[in-house]
């Protein structure tokens, strides 16, 4: 591992007060009745979740990450920019990472404006990701999934044009016409905040990241596939003349650290189970609205579906995905190994999975901040010195 190591903390802000009979719902997404949302409990969860992200900043995590989903108990963040805006004055150093609003779900000029506002408000701490959005978002929002990828490409082009070219400019596209693209404010960072694509590795999104020189975070893919995707992106980006840096490959790891491995498992497994079995529970139809995937992708995902959304087994998840549950030593060892194999120095801790209570999240963050991150930073620094000598 070379260069500075970077550690982010991601929060999904699940709504965890499910009715006792929630298992009878095939999906907690799209059509899970919203009568089950209790605003009192929702308010308490917002307060708690925000306090966890603020703590991450205090403990020295380099970035805090929020994201967007609709119609679901999986997430309390249909509008992550609102969360980001409330985090800015309560944090000092951490990058505010909005990972992010699917560009298809907003007018592109408006998204360019909102992100520019956050970047200016935070004095340049904003980082953004452009997800296509899960299939579920297309059942919840009035956008055609069959033309989603073409619209997505156009939206990103408009946002980049809005950020990088002096306005007013014009844009005459297939989906949007801008006679005066001239958004105020403009981003604090030049030419614009660092950008990532977050995706599950469809060839189209890899190509967009490669063409634009964006970072890429693959989520919900197996370790083997994630590694292949990183390699493919490095190759493809080089063809477009971009040299990908290690920090452009954020690696999302389900992490829980405790005094002993046994204790770590005992404290974390039920919440990881909740994450896979309940929070992520949805139907194949919701995952893949018509035209959203290529036929090849549909078939590939049908094969993977059982791993992600089926019957939970910690051993399977531990084997297939990036999961580091154990002592500080064990977690450091795993992260360093994956840093090598994945060619990254940028780790994203999924450290508040499922219905994990606040005390465990705080414990986990403290272990990470005191017993994992400093050791990895020191080791990376000493390797840099060796390399320099």
């Amino acid at each position, binding site marked *: 591992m070379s260069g500075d190591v970077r550690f982010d903390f991601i929060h999904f802000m699940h709504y965890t007060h499910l009715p006792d009979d929630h298992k009878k719902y095939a999906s907690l997404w799209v059509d899970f009745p919203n009568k089950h949302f209790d605003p009192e409990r929702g308010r308490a969860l917002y307060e708690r979740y925000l306090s966890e992200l603020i703590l991450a900043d205090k403990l020295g995590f380099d970035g805090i990450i929020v994201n967007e989903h609709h119609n679901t108990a999986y997430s309390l963040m249909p509008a992550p920019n609102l969360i980001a805006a409330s985090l800015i004055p309560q944090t000092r150093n951490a990058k505010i990472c909005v990972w992010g609003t699917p560009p298809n779900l907003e007018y592109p000029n408006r998204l360019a404006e909102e992100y520019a506002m956050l970047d200016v408000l935070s004095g340049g701490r904003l980082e953004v990701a452009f997800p296509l959005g899960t299939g579920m978002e297309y059942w919840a929002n009035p956008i055609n999934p*069959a033309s989603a990828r073409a619209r997505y490409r156009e939206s990103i082009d408009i946002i980049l044009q809005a950020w990088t070219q002096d306005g007013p400019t014009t844009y005459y596209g297939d989906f949007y016409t801008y006679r005066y693209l001239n958004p105020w404010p403009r981003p604090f960072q030049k030419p614009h905040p660092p950008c990532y694509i977050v995706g599950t590795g469809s060839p189209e999104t890899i190509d967009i990241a490669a063409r634009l020189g964006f970072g890429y975070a693959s989520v919900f893919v197996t370790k083997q596939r994630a590694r292949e995707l990183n390699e493919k992106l490095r190759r493809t980006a080089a063809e477009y003349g971009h040299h990908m840096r290690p920090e452009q490959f954020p690696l999302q790891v389900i992490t829980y650290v405790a005094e002993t491995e046994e204790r770590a498992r005992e404290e974390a497994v039920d919440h990881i189970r909740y994450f896979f079995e309940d929070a992520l529970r949805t139907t*194949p139809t919701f995952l893949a609205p018509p035209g*959203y995937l290529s*036929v090849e992708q549909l078939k590939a995902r049908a094969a993977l579906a059982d791993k992600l959304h089926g019957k939970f087994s910690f051993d399977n998840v531990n084997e297939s995905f990036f999961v580091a549950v154990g002592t500080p030593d064990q977690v450091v060892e795993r992260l360093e190994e994956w840093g090598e194999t994945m060619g990254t120095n940028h780790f994203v801790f999924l450290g508040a999975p499922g219905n994990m209570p606040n005390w465990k999240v705080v414990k986990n963050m403290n272990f990470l901040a005191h017993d994992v991150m400093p050791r990895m930073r020191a080791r990376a620094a000493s390797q840099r010195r060796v390399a320099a000598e």
Partner: protein
Amino acid sequence: MAAVAFPDQFKRETHTINGLKTTVLSAGKGEPLVFMHGAGIWHGINFAVPWTQKFRVIIPLHPGFGEADDDPAMSEIHDYVMHYLDLFDALGLDKFHLVGFSLGGLLAANFAVEHGHRIHRLVLVGPAGLRGKERPKGDFFLLPPEEIPGMLVSNFDVIKQFLPENPKDLDFMGERYREGGTLARLLWEHPYDTKLPRYLHRLTMPTLLVWGEDDKLLSVQNADIWRQYLPKAELQTFKGAGHLVLDEKREAVDAVQRFLS
């Protein structure tokens, strides 16, 4: 992709229209009868065999369905009308009877609204695409794929032979998913045609509406919506038949033949 087995007497021809490869099935002699299929052709065309006794039956596969190529740029019904103008020119078809089923009914109605002088007689079988006062019952996209076959028929045995033994057959799933994508390009934003009612008065040719009384996908009440705009159209409904009324009821096939004769 696995080709659907069509009845032997049908000749299969490939045509390339605007760079897009499509298949045209044809059989029989007599006045031309063009059949526009629905949002899937996997259940075959056995029902059309009796028509070949009296007509030259021509069944083109719509782009994005069955063996026909995809064209993501075909994103509205009118693109299909234009495609068929080109295809009918290529086939040297001037005037013909037009029978459209389900999505094909919506296409046929649109074609006939614009090019009515080419249509002798028009038959719309369980046509999709008009909006009722209630929430449209025919929102195909709300159906989980595994439930669709059961929604199409009154008697499941009629289509069982066309379905894979394994309900999770990946190739079958993939093909249906692809056709769902084609349909989404046309009908996702609105599962109905908002403009068509303005122009249905242009259907001055003799017109027959055919509906299965047990249609679970587009209920027979939809026929009333069509008849509001087509007061002169004849309506025939069939008991014990679902959406695939032609596949289920020989009487419906015969009724179409009598109407066209």
